[in-house]
């Protein structure tokens, strides 16, 4: 007989459009982070470290890289005889075939998957945060309160609380009220989008609301449970938790890893973060290289200068190149004598020689000022930048660009060249 106390459902289908060209060909959870990791490694590692060995990963948007990365779950010890990791894409049905239209709808479409494992509790996770959390402690809290639903929350500064969905609780942490992005917040406990449901409660709610268009946990399921009078509790998490949903926060949280003793420490023996390692060899630092505060992944070769940057695996930084305050992801090449400042260069890019990225005056992005900001230069996966071009701040490049794309060899601040991926 198959029985799992708690299984996890990890929502990994979102595009993450606020990461701009970084997610034009990959789902947000598959975006690289911290040199060798991908964002989804954090919730997956949390699962196995918390003793949750059955994880359904719901995919929808651009799943190729995610599927390749997860495989059968070997890096996280999630290759199990019973349970382990399963990729759950939307599928065609006899009557109403549809995409996943909302977070709860996606879970609803996989009721059979959950039923198969006969769980007591279901843990709902997102794939867009960097954190280390013991879900088992949260489950104990859930059980101790005899709760129907437990929502993980984190205290945020009161002045920032209006950016979040906050919960108002009684002294026993039972939730009395919800407020979504309140102008005048009455509490600073923000929901982290992590829920533990008692399976029977979740199942009943999903079936009842199955006709709800775009059924969403925050908008529909939780309010439904609340109105019904279910016991909903707020579990307070105190630790590092970072949303990497925007280019600015993504860049910032990468930079924080470089601190002498970072708040989010990857070097602790306890609570290891696992990932699929394709590159094994050590990195090579040449005799002329200068490295001043950096994280550098396996197999990279550094001939130039690296200042305050996060460099992935298998990256090549040519002689005379200067990389400053930047993120260079796996397999990218920075040409000789090229300068990169505040660049976010996605995987397998080739940046030509004698280029200048991120220098000069700043100007807001003409197409998406809210996405491409913080003076970053963002280059999407597999892009090519020709030799000797100058690229300004708040710019985005995606695809194989040639010199013809750069009027007189310059991409002015705030301009984009999008030649690949979904042109959105």
């Amino acid at each position, binding site marked *: 007989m198959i029985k799992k106390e708690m299984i996890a459902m990890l929502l990994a289908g979102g595009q993450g459009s606020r990461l701009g060209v970084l997610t034009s060909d990959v789902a947000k959870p598959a975006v690289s982070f*911290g*040199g*060798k990791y991908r964002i989804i490694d954090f919730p997956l590692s949390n699962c196995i470290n918390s003793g949750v060995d059955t994880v359904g990963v719901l995919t929808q948007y651009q799943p190729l890289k995610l599927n390749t990365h997860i495989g059968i779950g*070997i*890096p996280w010890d999630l290759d199990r005889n019973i349970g382990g990791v399963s990729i759950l894409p939307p599928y065609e049905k006899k009557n109403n075939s549809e995409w996943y239209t909302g977070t709860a709808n996606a879970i609803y479409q996989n009721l059979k998957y959950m039923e198969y494992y006969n769980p007591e509790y279901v843990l709902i996770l997102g794939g867009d945060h960097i954190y280390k959390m013991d879900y088992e402690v949260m489950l104990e809290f859930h059980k101790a309160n005899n709760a129907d639903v437990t929502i993980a929350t984190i205290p945020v500064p009161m002045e920032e609380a209006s950016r979040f969905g906050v919960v108002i609780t009684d002294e026993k942490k039972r939730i009395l009220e919800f407020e979504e992005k309140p102008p005048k917040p009455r509490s600073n406990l923000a929901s982290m989008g992590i829920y533990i449901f008692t399976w029977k409660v979740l199942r009943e709610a999903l079936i009842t609301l199955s006709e709800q268009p775009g059924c969403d946990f925050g908008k529909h399921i939780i309010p439904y449970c609340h109105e019904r009078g279910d016991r909903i509790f707020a579990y307070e998490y105190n630790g590092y938790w970072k949303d990497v949903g925007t280019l600015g926060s993504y860049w910032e949280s990468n930079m924080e890893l*470089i601190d*002498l003793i970072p708040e989010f420490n*990857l*070097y602790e023996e306890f609570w*290891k*973060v*696992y*990932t699929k*390692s394709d590159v*094994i*060899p*050590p*990195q*090579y*630092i*040449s*005799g*002329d*290289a*200068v*490295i*001043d*505060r*950096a*994280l*550098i*992944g*396996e*197999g990279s070769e550094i001939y130039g200068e690296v200042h305050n940057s*996060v*460099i*992935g*695996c298998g990256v090549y930084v040519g002689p005379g190149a200067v990389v400053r305050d930047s993120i260079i992801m796996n397999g990218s090449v920075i040409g000789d004598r090229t300068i990169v400042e505040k660049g976010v260069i996605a995987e397998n890019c080739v940046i030509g020689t004698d280029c200048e990225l991120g220098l000069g005056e700043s100007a807001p992005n003409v197409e998406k000022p809210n996405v491409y900001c913080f003076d970053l230069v963002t280059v999407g996966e597999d892009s090519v930048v020709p030799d000797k071009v100058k690229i300004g701040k708040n710019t985005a490049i995606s695809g194989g660009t040639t010199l013809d794309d750069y009027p007189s060899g310059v991409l002015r601040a705030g301009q984009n060249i999008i030649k690949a991926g979904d042109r959105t």
Partner: protein
Amino acid sequence: MRAIGIVLAGGNNNKMRELSNKRAIAAMPVAGSYRSIDFALSNMSNSHVQKVAVLTQYNSRSLNEHLSSSKWWDFGRKQGGLFLFNPTITADNSFWYRGTADAIYQNLTFLKNSHEPYVVIASGDCVYKLDYNKVLEYHIAKKADITVVCKKMAPEEDTSRFGLVKLDEDGRIQEFEEKPLATNASMISTGIYIIRRRQLIELLERANEEERYDFVKDILIRYKNVKRIYAYEMDSYWSNISTVESYYQTNMDFLNKGIRDYFFKEYPDVYSKIDDLPPAKFNQGAIAKNSLISSGCIINGVVENSVLFKKVYVGNNVTIKNSIVLNDVHIGDNTYIENCIIESRDTIRANATYVGENGKIKIVVEKNERYAL
């Protein structure tokens, strides 16, 4: 593939000095992120040899730990797999492995229960890449009984620790001398052999009856005029780790771009156990020049012309020159290290100095209490 594999990993050599105290040579860390046996195992895997036995004897704890899962080399298969054979006492045998031939003889059932027609025998203490299929094709073309992979050494190299061969025009081995005192031969045996499985069983059974136990002396040399023993000449990089000097040099060879690219970038890859360590971290004041640095390292000081293995902590104001620092070493502040090999899991105190004088490599074994971290 038409062959099974045997990796001889039982050996120890007192020329490895203190480094051999805690592990067999096959478990010696190499090139920052690997262990010596990874090269033979990766070659087996990349040559589609699916069934491989590793014969261990000398202090195999570290080796067993490294081989605790066979998935890293893709041997976790229903067809074939990785077999670890330590010496065991049986009803009719209570000896350790008395030699390389005896080691295989004591596991004769492995050979008898297989159905593949050929056997690739390799040792776990060599660093190289080789497609064993090419050797097998040569073996079949020459209608050889045994094929020995050989390598021509440059005249300046010291060949006294190898077996030397002389060939006729066809490539058949005419003379085979093990560690000769003086020789004019320059072709050495790399310790990699291909032989038909039934032939091997027959030779081993006969050797055992005659109480002969060494593969080189009692099979290759003894049968060289009776059997067709051929040399397959390999011309790519090959290095044998059996002395401190060769171990040091082999690691330093990886600072050479040509050799590094050959192993790290060219197809096929070399595989190793994955340790799940974070990327190397360089803090303020860190300087690295012409060095290999592995995952999990935290660098605060100066590293020059050196190879740092995994999880090395280099304290503030430390200088490391022309040295090899093995896995999981903590080096306290203000320490100076030159021409040394720092043994794994060492804790080096602050303000210490270790220098290998007169070009001699110093091996540092320091098991202090580790307070930091």
